[in-house]
C-alpha cells in the first residue's frame, strides 16, 4: 500500500484492524483519545465491536471477556487510565489471555499533565499489577512503528497468550509521518481454548485462580518459562552508528528520535557517539547492550522520567561501564542541542584525557 501521512495514534487502529482486531473497549484520555475515536469510526464498519466503557477498569475487564471469547481485541489509554487497568492486566496475564494495550504516556504523577513523558515505564515494564507476571512491551518511535508494532503486538499476544503493551509517548501518538500499512489479514480462527458458547468449546474454562499452592506454583513456573522464552527470542533493539561508538546513547520512543539527531550533531563535532534504541522494553535487549559495552567507553541514558529505563540499563550493565543520565520531565522534551550540550559537558574531561570517569 502507498505511504500515507498518518498520526501515530491512528496508525495503531488502522494496523489493528488490518491485523484482524475486531473489538475495542476504551475510555477517553488525552493524548490517547484519537485511538478510541478512530476505533469508533472503523470497527463497526468491519463487523467489529467498539464500546466506550464506563472506566478503564471496565475496559480492561471487557478485554478479558473479549479475549476469553477468542477475539483479537485491544484498548488504549495513558497514565491514570493505565493505573486503573493494572488489576485487570494481572488477571489477563494470569488467565493467559492475548490482547493488546496501547499506552500513550503523559505527565504524572496524579493528574500531572497531558504532555509527553515516559513515566509509565515502571508500571508497564515492571508489571504494575499483583503477582509474578510480565506484559510484553514494545516501544515504537515513529508512526510507521506505531503501525508495525501493533501488528507485531497481536502476533506476540497470540503466540505467548499474554497481554502485549505498545508503550509510546504523547509525541509519538500525536505526530504524523508517512505510514505504509500491511495488507489486511482474515480474522484468525479463534484459539481452541476460547469460550465461545458452542458445543465444542463447552469444556473450556478461563480463570486465574489456582487454589492449591502446588498448582499455583506450577502455573507460575509455566508463566515464568514463557517469559524466559520471550527473553531468549523476542528482545530487539535498533543500533545506530554504534560500530565505532565510544559513547552509546540509550533511549526509546520520541527520545530515541531526538538521540538520533544528537548522534549526528556529536559526530559533526568529531565525538564518536552511537545510539541503542530498545524496540522491546520487556524483554529488555540485554544481550545487545552488553555486547556494545565491550567497545563503548560509557553510556548515556536519556529519558522523559527520573530514571526508570535507567534502572534496567544499570541492571544490564552491572557496572561494566559508567552510565550517565539525562532526564527531562513534566512534559518537556529536550532538543537535540540540549542533550548534546549535556553530553559534551559531562564527558568533556574524559574526551580530552581519553579516559572515562566513573560518576556516581
Amino acid at each position: 500500500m502507498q505511504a500515507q501521512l498518518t498520526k501515530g495514534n491512528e496508525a495503531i487502529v488502522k494496523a489493528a484492524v488490518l491485523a484482524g482486531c475486531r473489538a475495542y473497549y476504551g475510555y477517553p484520555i488525552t493524548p490517547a483519545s484519537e485511538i478510541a475515536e478512530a476505533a469508533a469510526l472503523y470497527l463497526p464498519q468491519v463487523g467489529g465491536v467498539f464500546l466506550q466503557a464506563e472506566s478503564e477498569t471496565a475496559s480492561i475487564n471487557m478485554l478479558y471477556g473479549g479475549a476469553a471469547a477468542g477475539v483479537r481485541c485491544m484498548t488504549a489509554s495513558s497514565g491514570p487510565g493505565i493505573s486503573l487497568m493494572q488489576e485487570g492486566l494481572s488477571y489477563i496475564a494470569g488467565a493467559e489471555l492475548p490482547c493488546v494495550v496501547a499506552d500513550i504516556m503523559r505527565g504524572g504523577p496524579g493528574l500531572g499533565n497531558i504532555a509527553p513523558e515516559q513515566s509509565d515505564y515502571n508500571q508497564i515494564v515492571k508489571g504494575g499489577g499483583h503477582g509474578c507476571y510480565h506484559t510484553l512491551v514494545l516501544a515504537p518511535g515513529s508512526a510507521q512503528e506505531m503501525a508495525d508494532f501493533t501488528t507485531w503486538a497481536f502476533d506476540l499476544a497470540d503466540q505467548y497468550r499474554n497481554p502485549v503493551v505498545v508503550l509510546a509517548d504523547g509525541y509519538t501518538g500525536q505526530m504524523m509521518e508517512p505510514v505504509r500499512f500491511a495488507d489486511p489479514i482474515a480474522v484468525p480462527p479463534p484459539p481452541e481454548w476460547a469460550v465461545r458458547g458452542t458445543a465444542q468449546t463447552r469444556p473450556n474454562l478461563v480463570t486465574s485462580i489456582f487454589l492449591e499452592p502446588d498448582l499455583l506454583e506450577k502455573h507460575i513456573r509455566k508463566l515464568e518459562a514463557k517469559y524466559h522464552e520471550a527473553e531468549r527470542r523476542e528482545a530487539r533493539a535498533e543500533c545506530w552508528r554504534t560500530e565505532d561508538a565510544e559513547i552509546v546513547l540509550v533511549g526509546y520512543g520520541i527520545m530515541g528520535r531526538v538521540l538520533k539527531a544528537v548522534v549526528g550533531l556529536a559526530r559533526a563535532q568529531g565525538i564518536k557517539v552511537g545510539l541503542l534504541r530498545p524496540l522491546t522494553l520487556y524483554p529488555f535487549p540485554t544481550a545487545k547492550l552488553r555486547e556494545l559495552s565491550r567497545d563503548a567507553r560509557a553510556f548515556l541514558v536519556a529519558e522523559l522520567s527520573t530514571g526508570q529505563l535507567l534502572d534496567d540499563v544499570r541492571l544490564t550493565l552491572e557496572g561494566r561501564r559508567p552510565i550517565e543520565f539525562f532526564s527531562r520531565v513534566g512534559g518537556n522534551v529536550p532538543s537535540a542541542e540540549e542533550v548534546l550540550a549535556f553530553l559534551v559537558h559531562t564527558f568533556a574531561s574524559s574526551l580530552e584525557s581519553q579516559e572515562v570517569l566513573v560518576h556516581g
Partner: protein
Amino acid sequence: MGSFTVTQERAECFYDCFERKAELQHQTHYCPGCGHGIVHKLLAQAIDELGIQDRTILISPVGCSVFAYYYFDVGNIQSAHGRAPAVATAVKRSRPESIVVSYQGDGDLAAIGTAEIVHAANRGEPITVIFVNNGIYGMTGGQMAPTTPLGKKSTTSPFGRNQWTEGFPVHVCELLNSLEAPVFIERVGLGTNKQIMNAAKVIKRAVENQVHGLGFSFVEVLSPCPTIWKLNPVEAQRFVRDEMAKTFGIANLRDHTKEAAMRPAAVPPPAIEEIPRILGLVNGHAEAPPTGRPDRALNLHIKVAGFGGQGVLLLGEVLAEAGLEAGYEVSWLPSYGPEMRSGTSNCHVRLSSDPIDSPMVSRPNVLLALNEPSLRKFLPAVEAGGIVLYNGEAFPEDCARRDVRGMALPFSHLADGMGESKAGNIIMLGALLEATGLLEEEQVIGALRRLVKSQRWFELDLKALECGREEVRKQPFPMAEDYLWGV
C-alpha cells in the same frame, strides 16, 4: 444441601463429578443451607429446560460462588471482583449467539462492581444477571456488605450497621429500575419453599429473555448464608423470609418483555479486500509510488506558529503532505492539549531528502510566524540564513535579525480582502512557495484537495495560494533558491 432442596435429580448441565475441585468431588463447596447451592440448581434447571447448555457461558464472580465453574458443565469464565458485567458485555458483544449469564454476590455487584452493573444495565446488554444478595461478605468471613440490613452486626460493623456511618442497605433493583434500558428486573427470595419455586420461574424467565434476543434481565435473589450469620439452615431461611424480605421487598419491578424493541440485526462484515478502502488507505495519491528521491536535496526544519484558529496545524500539514507527494521524507508534530487551549498553537514540520532523525524542530531554518508572540518566541532560535515569514506589516523594531531572510506581509489582512480572514495561512504558504520555489504547484494542490474537505474552502485556498504568490511577484524578496537547496 439444606432441607429445602427443590431439585432432587442432578441437572444435566451440572458435571457428574466435580473434577475441578481438589477433593470431595461429589459435593459442592457451599455450606449446608447456603443460598448459592440453591440458586445454582435453579439456574442449572433453567439451562436444562431451555436446552441451551452448549450455548451458555457462565461468568463467575469473586465471592463464595467464585467456583461456580466446578459445577456448571457450560463454557466458564472466572472474572475479577465486581467486573463480571464488563466481562459478560464483551463476551456477548463478540459472541451474540451465546447465552451469557453473569453471576454475582452482593459485595461483588453492589459495592466494588457498582459502576459495571449500572452501565451494563444502562447499555441494555442482552445478558442475564443473577445477583445473590445474602447481605454479607461470605467468602472473606463476614464483613459488612452494602446490603447488610440496618442494625446487623458483622465483623466490620461490630456495633451493628448504623445508618449515620454506614448508610442504608443498597436496593439494587430499584437503582437499576431508574434506567431506561433494562427489560426485566425482579427480586425474589429463598425464604420459603413457595418463594424458591417462584425464584425458579423467575430465573428461567430471565434466561429465556436472552434466548429470545431481548435485552438486559436482572434477578436479585435474597439468599441465606447460615455460616456467617451463625444460624442453622432453617433459621437462616427464616431470616431471609422475615428480615431480608422486609428490608428489600420481593416483587417484580419491571417486565418490558412484551414491548421490548428487537435489536437491529448485525451488519455482515465486509470482504477482507474492502478493508483498506474502509480505512481510507485507498486515496487520491498517485497510483505509482514516487520513484526515488527528488533531484534536489533538502533538509527543512520548519516551525509554524500562531494563534489557535489561524490554521497553523493545517499549514504545517499541507507542507508535509505535499512534501511526501514530492518524494521527501516528512514529519509533522503538533503542540497539543492545554497549550492549544490557551490560544497558541504551533507545529514542527520536517521535509528531508534523508530519513528524518528527530521530528522535533528546535533550530528552524524556516519560521512561519502567524502572530507577534510566535515571532518573538521562535525567532531567536532560527538558524543563521534561515527564512522567516511574518504575518504583519513589518517586523517589530526590537525583534528583527539581520542574519535571516525575512518577509513581513499582512497575510490576515490580505485574507480579509478575500472575504475570509482565516485563509491567511494559505496566503502565507503561497508566498513561501513563490519566494523559494519549494514544491511543485500540483503537489500542493493535491495536498489541499486531500486535506481540505469542503469544496468551498478548497476553492478559497486555491485563490489564497495565488494571492500569496501574487504579493511576492509584486515585490520580490531576497530569498533566492540557493539557500534552501542544499541546507
